[in-house]
Structures are given as C-alpha cells and as structure tokens.
C-alpha cells in the first residue's frame, strides 16, 4: 500500500509560516475568542431552554 501523502506534500510551493506571525492570533483565540464562544453558547443554550418553556402559548393565528 502506497504511503499516504499529507496535504502539504500534495501541493507545490507551500512554505512554513513564521511562528511569530501567529502569536497575536493564538493569544486572541486563547484569551478572548474561545472563552467568549463557550460563554455565548452556554447563554444561548439557556435561552433556548427558556423558549421551550413557552410551549403552552398557542401558536395559532387568531385572525383566521
């Protein structure tokens, strides 16, 4: 069986990226973005739970 080529081996011209160029992004993701995502998803989950509790309201058009 032939050795599986990695994505990087299949494409010509790829070069390593200077790690220093990634520092800001990594810090932004770690310190801000990921914690925010976790927080907002939890908040949205709770809002969805609340919305489900409104099930007894009748979703029927009274004008008809």
């Amino acid at each position, binding site marked *: 069986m032939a050795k599986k080529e990695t994505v990087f081996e*299949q494409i010509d011209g790829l070069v390593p990226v200077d790690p220093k*160029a990634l520092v800001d992004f990594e810090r932004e993701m770690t310190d801000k973005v990921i914690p925010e995502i976790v927080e907002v998803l939890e908040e949205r989950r709770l809002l969805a739970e609340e*919305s489900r509790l409104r099930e007894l309201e009748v979703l029927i058009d009274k004008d008809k």
Partner: protein
Amino acid sequence: MYTWIPLSAIADLAQLTTHISSEYGPKAVAKKLADSLSDAVKSVLIEHDYTDKDYRSTYYNFYAKKGQHYRPECVRLHFFDATVSFDENTLRLTSATDDRLTDHYYGYMVLRPTGIGTIGRSVLSPDVRRGASRYIIAAAHKVHLLGYTLMIRGFPSMDQHRDVSVCAHASCWSMLRHYSERYPVYREFLTHDITMMAQQFNPGGLVPSKGLGVPQAERIFQAAGTFPLVVARKRNTVIDPTFYRQLAAYVDSGFPLFAAMHKRQHAVVVVGYEWRAPVNTAIAGMRYSWDEIESLAVVDDNHLPYIPIPKSGGSLYSAEDIDTFIVAFPEKIFYPAEAVERLAPALFKLGAVVGLPPQDETILRYFITTGSALRRFVRKRESEFDPQLLKTIMSLPFAQFVWIVEIATEPQWATNQLFARAIIDATASPRELMPLWLLHTTTEALVFDRETVGLELHAGMRGLSLSDMGHTTFTRMDQNLRPTQTK
C-alpha cells in the same frame, strides 16, 4: 376533468368561482391569487378530482370520521405563461415558442374541500409572486400532469387546516417537504404524519387545540431525521444582533428556518432575503451580512408564499417579532454560526500574513455549504484562482460541510466581489484554536492540515504565495438560494 381559463388580467381569476364548487373556497382563493400573483400568469388549468396525498392523509385519519361529509377529492390549479394553450379535445398542452412546457409553468396549488383554509399543498414560482424577495430557498418539485412531467422550483406552502393542523404544523410541513425534495436522504412526511410526530403518543383526537410550540416543532424535526438547533433571542429586548446574524447566516446557507413569534402567537418559515441597495458609509466599522439585508422572505400560512418582511415596523410583522428560530441541521454540523461570528474577526490577526484589508473597512458574510459545492463553484471560475490555490481547494479533505467566510470591502460588496475567503471546518469543536482549512486573498494563502494543526499550530499550517491572476477580487459565492427573476 380539466378546465382551461385564459386570463387577460390577473383579476380574471374571479372566474374560478364559476368552475369550482364552494367547499373549495374558490372566491377567497381567487382573491388571494389576484392580490398576490403578477400579470405574467396568463392561464390557469383546473384539474378536477385530483387525489392529493397530503389531504388524503388527513381525510383518512380525521375528516372521514366526522359527521359532516367531506369529499375525498381535491382540485389542483396549474399556472402558465402567455405562450401556453390547451386543446380541450386532445387534452394537449402546447407552448407557442418551444416544446419545453416547464419553462412556461409557474407552479400549482391544491384546493381542499374543507370549506375553510382550503389552500393545500402548493409550490409557486417566486418569479410571479408580487414583491417576492431577491433570494429564495428553493428546490425542484416534479409535477405530473396530463402525461407531461413538469418541474417547478419553489418552496412548498399550504394553509393551516385549523382543526388538524395549525400554523406551526404548516411551517414544519413546508420545511420537511422542502427537505424531502431537496435532499434524497430525507423521506416525505404528509400532513397527518406531521401532526402525529408532534405528540409523544396518539392522543386519540387530532385537534391541536393548544397549538404547537417550539418543543413540539423541535420534536417533529428530530423525528424526521434532522438535528434541530433552537436559537432564542435574549428576553425582553430586540437588541440582540448576534441572534439576527445567526439567522442571516443559516438562511444564507440554504436552511429554511422555523420562526416563532410568541407575542403574536404565530409561526412562519424564513425562506430568503433581499439585500439592501449598496451604501457608502462614512462611519468606519466592521459590518455583517445581516446589516446589509433589507428584508426577509417568509412563508406564512395566512398568505401566498414569499412575503417580504422588514427588519422592523411593517404592516404585517417584522424580523423583530421573531424571538426563536429552529434550524434543522443535517448531521455533521458542529460549529455553530455564533462561533463563526466570534472567530471571523480574529482572522484579522493573521492579516499581515495574507494581506487582509483593515478590519474596520470590511463586511463579513458567512454561510454553510458543502465541500463539493465549493469545488463546483471554484471549477466554474477557474480563471480567478492561482493553479496551486485551485489544487489546494480540490485536494483538502473537507468534511461534508464547511463554513465559508467572505471578507469584502464596501466597494467590493457593492459589485458582488470579495477580498478574501476563509474556509472553516463545520465539524470543528467550538473550543478549537484553529478550525480552518484555508484562508486566502488574491496574493497569499494559509493552508491548514487538520490532522496536525490541532496538535501543534505551527506544524499544521503552511503559507502559499499566489501568482497574479490579473484581478484583485473574487466573485461572491451565491449558490445556496435561487435568484428571483421577476416576471
């Protein structure tokens, strides 16, 4: 039996009352059609004694058991343009211009013999719906008529029965009928199926006297084999931009949304949108595609489909009235729009590597598509792409679904162009540091190996300098929704 009605003007639809008995509500139907369809509709073929599977599902399980007598047959109306004629002797339909009847067909509408709420399963072309939004989620629906096989691209709709189904049932039915036509993996569910799927057990009577709420709708979508995500707005405020950005992202992904308006005790399906006219703003600041939307298109069981509703105000209701929506995902979408909204601005921290424009001068648009749809789009526009970038997109082992983030400046947005594109793995975990497959402009790209990037960021990414392809922008990817061609 078939009856042909040529129309010199859409108001001539009043003739329906002379050909269709009152239990099908022809007067109300004719008024609704005359108020909503364009004058491009030049003839109606009435198909009498039509057997409609959706009505029959309610007839066998409900109407046939009642003391009041209901007929088992429906009537179906077919709408055509000015080129089509009908020979009553041979029952032949002919177009004066070509033999492609489908190109001259605007859809159909079933009428049920229930006296009230008589409009049953219908698929109408957005092209002849007055005021229809520019972009509509649509699927091709096959129609068998007089030995012809016609196709109509639209979104299914029907009136609520009021006794066996209410507006929320009709909304669920519309979405699931769209899914069964659009995606082979989903089976078809009839009206009665939908009513029953909302319940934990057969309650004996089918009268949904208490209507149907979000949990029941969620249950229906789950029972149908989808993976519903309930997204609710913050309570007691309409100022929740993230809620609406998500809504826009999912609709732009081609997912119809079950939209609940609890204060109005109503539910509709969001099926499209209209961009606002491009604007030049003096105020710097990143904007989202939701900011560029003028109105949403909804399927509301009180009206013919594709009603445009504004963001706020409006005579009927507006996007501000939507407080909860359900998106019925297929399997394998784990990275939600809310995570993309947080991730996308962070991409500008990589701006120096790929040459992004200043963040404050951009408009972000993000939506889900499939890897194969992305490749199809790129293949059709090969000349825009550096050969190695094209090879990269064709070679990356995408999961079935990807998020696309399009980054455009204001002038680019106005011409349907963009500066940069990010491709995000829709199966990524929301806690991943680098959920990307690719980020590229016209000059540089960052390519990510998803096998290794999660283990070591630097080792899992490579840069790629792109050759000059003679242009400075890319075409916006507009293929999830059908552009309306007003007639």
